Every structure is written in structure tokens, then in C-alpha cells.
């Protein structure tokens, strides 16, 4: 058995030990089963729920997250490229962008509720708006930091502005853009869930909130597991895409 397999098994062993601890703690009542359902109850809720409406909830949340994320990425890259290629525009606009960077996306929800009411559109708006900023800022940065030597090469080859943006600016910004999109994905999920909680929209967010209010801990945990899964899978897929697109960094 080589070292890598050993590490993997050891890692799995630790995880299993934690699950075992969970099993003991909940079944023996060390922690009240109101807060900590048993693993078997959680699994049962998961299986049952998926046969019922949990799958719909999951798809609704994922759908919201993806829609908002895609919209945000498109607008973010387009706007970011427009701002990033021009040092003049950047000088005027960048300080304002940096101010917006630390703002919580969810903080826009009250405003969005006033404008759009408690609707799916409201949630989508806040998801897209919140997720746009990391992509926009990363794109601006990526376009702003073009190696000056490459800019000179483009001049020597008499490349048109459009050709420069498409062939040099965009690929150069790709690592930054993808990093921004990864962050945006995390924000999309969070804001989608919060939106569902506040605006009582169909989805996992609403489902776990209702489960908690009804003291149905196993359903709550089932929902948390699914949300964790969504986070994990979406990130893994994006990481895979990133590796393919940035193959030139580590051929």
C-alpha cells in the first residue's frame, strides 16, 4: 500500500470516527435529540424526503443559484472588461468599486423587497447582484494587470483594439475571472438560501427553516446535508472546469 492510499484511508478513518461519535452521542442521548438527530433518522428523512418533495426543493435552490450566478458572471465579465481595459475609466470608477466590495449581498434584500416584493424575482435579483461583484472586480483586476511587454508586442504587431482585448486581455484575465466566479458561486448559494428563508420561496432554505420551527431535527439535518452537497459538487465542477481552461499553467 503506497503512501497516498494510506493517507486516504487514514482520512476516511477519521471521518468515520466522527460519524461514529455522532452516532453514539445522539443515540445515547448525550446531546438532546431535539438538536442532534441520530444518523439513521437523518438518513431516513433524507430518503423519505427525496421520494417526496425534497428533490423539488433542491432543484429549486440549485436553479436559483445557477441562474443568478450565470447572469452575474456574464454581466460581471462584460462590465469588468469594459472598465478594466481603459486606465482612464478605471481611475474614475475603481475607488467606488472597492468601496462596494466588502458590502454583504444580503443587505440589499430589504431594498429589493420594497421594490420587487416577496417574489422569486426579488431573490434572483439579489443573488445576481451580489454575485456580480466578485466577478466584476476580478475581471477589472485581470484586465488591468496585463504584462506591459505583451501590450508592446501587440503594438508592434499592429493588433486592433478588439483583437487585443479578445486575444490578450481576456486570456490574461482568465485566472482572475475564474477565481472571481468561484467566489461568486459561494455567494450565490448563500444569498439564494437567505432569500428563500426571508421571502418564503420554495427551496431548501425555506424547508430547513420550517423544519426547525416544527422541531423536526432529522429533516433539518437532511436539508443541511443536501446544502453541503450542493456546495461541494458545484465547487468541484467549477474547479474541474478551471483546471481544463488553465491547462497552460500546469501542462
Amino acid at each position: 500500500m503506497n503512501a497516498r492510499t494510506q493517507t486516504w484511508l487514514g482520512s476516511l478513518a477519521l471521518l468515520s470516527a466522527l460519524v461514529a461519535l455522532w452516532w453514539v452521542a445522539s443515540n445515547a442521548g448525550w446531546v438532546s435529540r431535539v438538536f442532534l438527530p441520530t444518523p439513521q433518522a437523518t438518513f431516513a428523512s433524507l430518503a423519505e424526503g427525496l421520494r417526496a418533495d425534497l428533490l423539488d426543493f433542491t432543484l429549486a435552490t440549485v436553479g436559483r443559484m445557477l441562474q443568478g450566478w450565470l447572469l452575474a458572471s456574464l454581466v460581471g465579465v462584460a462590465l469588468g472588461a469594459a472598465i478594466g481595459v481603459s486606465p482612464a475609466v478605471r481611475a474614475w470608477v475603481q475607488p467606488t468599486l472597492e468601496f462596494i466590495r466588502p458590502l454583504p449581498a444580503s443587505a440589499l434584500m430589504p431594498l429589493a423587497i420594497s421594490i420587487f416584493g416577496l417574489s422569486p424575482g426579488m431573490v434572483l435579483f439579489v443573488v445576481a447582484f451580489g454575485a456580480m461583484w466578485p466577478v466584476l472586480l476580478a475581471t477589472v483586476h485581470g484586465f488591468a494587470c496585463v504584462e506591459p511587454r505583451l501590450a508592446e508586442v501587440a503594438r508592434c504587431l499592429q493588433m486592433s483594439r478588439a483583437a487585443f482585448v479578445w486575444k490578450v486581455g481576456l486570456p490574461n484575465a482568465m485566472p482572475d475571472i475564474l477565481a472571481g466566479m468561484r467566489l461568486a458561486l459561494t455567494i450565490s448559494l448563500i444569498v439564494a438560501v437567505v432569500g428563500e428563508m426571508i421571502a418564503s420561496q420554495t427551496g431548501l432554505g425555506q424547508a430547513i427553516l420550517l423544519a426547525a420551527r416544527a422541531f423536526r431535527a432529522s429533516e433539518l439535518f437532511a436539508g443541511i446535508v443536501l446544502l453541503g452537497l450542493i456546495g461541494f459538487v458545484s465547487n468541484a465542477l467549477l474547479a474541474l472546469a478551471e483546471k481544463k481552461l488553465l491547462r497552460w499553467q500546469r501542462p
Partner: protein
Amino acid sequence: MKPNDLPVGMAEPFLRFEDVSIRLGGREILSPTSFDVARGEFVCIVGPSGCGKTTLLRAASGLVAPSAGEVRRKGRAMTEPSREVAFVFQDYGRALLPWRTVEGNVSLALEAAGVPAAERGARIADVLGKVGLGRHGQKFPVQLSGGMQQRTQIARCLAQKPELMMMDEPFGALDALTRQSLQDELARLVREDGLTVLFVTHDLEEAIYLGDRVIALQANPGLGRPSLARMINVEIPRPRDQLGTKEHPEFLRLRRELFAFIEQGHD
């Protein structure tokens, strides 16, 4: 120093530097300098750091504007870069697109020139063959050695089918062995394609080895001390080789002359 005296009525020289001077930060780096370059000539420019040789080259290629004076190619002022003037940068790593393969990087020059896609493959293969990278076309810059990266850059410049090639200390960042082989490769390419080359280097021997003419600049020009201090013709027969030429009496004489001059300049 007076420009090459041309008989009255002769056509414009291929490249003419007319009273080109450069000021940076209020100081005059290069005093008004004039000289001509004929088509097919290999002119090397040497000098200590701060003498303005790199800036002179950049001004000649249109990347920067001289503070005064003009550089004219075939009678027209070089105010903007042109595809017919290829520029080989010293920091080759930063002049290549890291996300494109060797072939992709060479292709960039063809794309910019509007060469139809169907023709590109053949031209890329041809130019890669010339620089000896025929089997490395699919590699990314990060996978290449320094010498190979510089050859990729040279290949891209050759793909432009330039009339004039500007080279800014292209072999300065390479080890001695790689430098020597690239020197010989360059000499061969220039001969094959009949290129005109302006080659900046701090290596005196390299300048004499490669050039038809060597222009020596000095730093801190002042009254009675122009930047253009020496212009010597290198009358050593071609083709040249690393061993034989460097023992040639003319090579040794020029080398001594240039060394003495540079030492003098260091006082």
C-alpha cells in the same frame, strides 16, 4: 559624428537616424545622434548601461517618440510601430503569451497581419523549422527552456516577414553555450532572409562577431562628448564561426580598439 556621406541625388537610405536625442527625467540621455543603416546591414549598438542604447532602439521601432529628431524608414518617420519592423525583447518570458503553445504564439503574428487561416499552418511550420523548434510546436512556454523561449519569440518575429529586425539584448539572459548557438543561428537566418538588423548588446565580442558595423555609445553625453562615440566597420569575411573568427587578427584588433575605448569611457 557626421552621417554617412551620400552622393547627391541618391535615394533615401533604408533607415536614417537624424539628430535623434532622448531626454528622461530632465536629463539628456542621448545627445543628438545621426547615422544611416543600409538595407541588409547588421548593425550592432554597444555601450555601458545608461547610454540610451535600448531607448534608441525603442525609438527606432516607434514604441517611444524621441525627444527631438526623427527616425525615418524608407523616407517616412517612425512614429508608430509597424508590422514590417519586428522587435525582439530581452525578457522573452514576458513577451510570449503563456496561454498559447509555441505554434499559437507564432500564429499571433499571422493573425494580426490578417493571413487567412488556411495558410497559417504552413507558414508556422516553415518558420519553426528555421529556428529549430519544429518538434516543439505543441508545447507551452512554461515547458520551454530560456533559449527555446527566445527562439519562439524570434520565430514569431520572422513570421511577420519583417524588413527590419530590432533586437534588444536578445541573448543577454541566456547561458554562454546557448548564447553562442543562438548567435550562429541568427547569423544564418539573417543571411538566408536578407534581413536588416539593429542589435543592441553589452557584449563587445558578440557585437563584433555578429555585426557588419558596430556603433559604440557612451553615457552621460555633454559638450564635446557626443553619445555616438565610435562607428567602426567590421571587415571580417562571412560566414563566421565561434572558433576561427575569434582568433582572426581583424577581430582581435577591433576587440582591442573597442575595449580600450570602453575603458576610457569609464573614467
